[in-house]
């Protein structure tokens, strides 16, 4: 009998996530854009941490300790680089505002 294959868990990386303002009925006050690509981070931070997983020294040490003591959690897959989004919207007084909101889009993910 062949052993059941161990399901391979994907490493930490950026995934697609489109926020559509019309889905939540915000398109009546957000003039533009109609939505934006926010992205999210998900995946494993396995031991040993590879360079492309964009980890910190602390994450490498934490992962190392986790490999010998499972009470200590693995490093987390989190956004490491974020960019702003500009929204053109009407406020509660029907005045039109263009504003840059920081840290709205995930540009890069890493193990931290």
């Amino acid at each position, binding site marked *: 009998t062949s052993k059941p294959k161990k399901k391979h868990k994907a490493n930490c990386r950026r995934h697609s996530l489109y926020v559509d303002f019309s889905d939540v009925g915000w398109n009546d006050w957000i003039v533009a854009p109609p939505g934006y690509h926010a992205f999210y981070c998900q995946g494993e931070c396995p031991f040993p941490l590879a360079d492309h997983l964009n980890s910190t020294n602390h994450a490498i040490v934490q992962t190392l300790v986790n490999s010998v003591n499972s009470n200590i959690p693995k490093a987390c897959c989190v956004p490491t680089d974020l960019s702003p989004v500009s929204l053109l919207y009407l406020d509660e007084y029907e005045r039109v505002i*263009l504003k*840059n909101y920081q840290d709205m889009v995930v540009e890069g993910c890493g193990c931290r």
Partner: protein
Amino acid sequence: GSAGLVPEQGRRKYAAPLSQDTLSTFEARLLSLFGLKQRPSPSRSAVVPRYMLDLFAAYSANAEPKHGAGKRSLGRESEKSASRANTIRSFHHDESTEELSSHSAKTTQRFLFNLSSIPREEFVTSAELRIYREQVTTAANSSSNNSSLGYHRINIHEIMKPGLSFKEPITRLLDTRLVQHSLSKWESFDVSPAVLRWTAEGHANRGFVVEVVHPSSADRDYKKHVRVSRSLHDSEDSWPQMRPLLVTYSHDGKGHVLHTRQKRQAR
């Protein structure tokens, strides 16, 4: 309910498993993120000025490149103002407080813009007053196009003290320009000193006086060239997009300033 950020439609779609408390907390957090006290619910008649759409196309961090959009230059002054700001707000004046007076040689209009919606933590770095002037098309137009008769002077004043008992208010000149009435064009005037006085220094906002000095022999049609009042024109439909617009550039101390697409790409 209606004051919430996520309306019923969105709640039914996404928020069914969440408790009301959780949803309220989530909504409060989002409202705070957007700097809003309650969910905006604009009426169908709300007007989005064309200039704000152009600014969005030019400066937004995420606008999709469209044909020509964003490539169109909004002027060096606009770019300079945007390079120090992360928020651009637009204001229409309160028409109930306007005072139009027209004499043979000049038309003056008092404008009051309510700027109380600018949050205290936001620092206004500059402001422009945009006024539309429409090409005058009359039989006499062609003969006067190239003569000095076609020139109007637009003076923008800040009202320092209101006029008492039929006296003129005490004003100071903020910006001035000589324009020819053979063109249709938006004119932008720098009103930063006044708006900074009102917002950062806490002085009373008594508004602006826009003074249009007409050519010496101008007839009634020529006096309509600069669109400072709804009453000067018959075309009501175009007024919402042609009326004067005050645009403020500010920064709330959070995040990056606005950049043109070219500058973002270079960065």
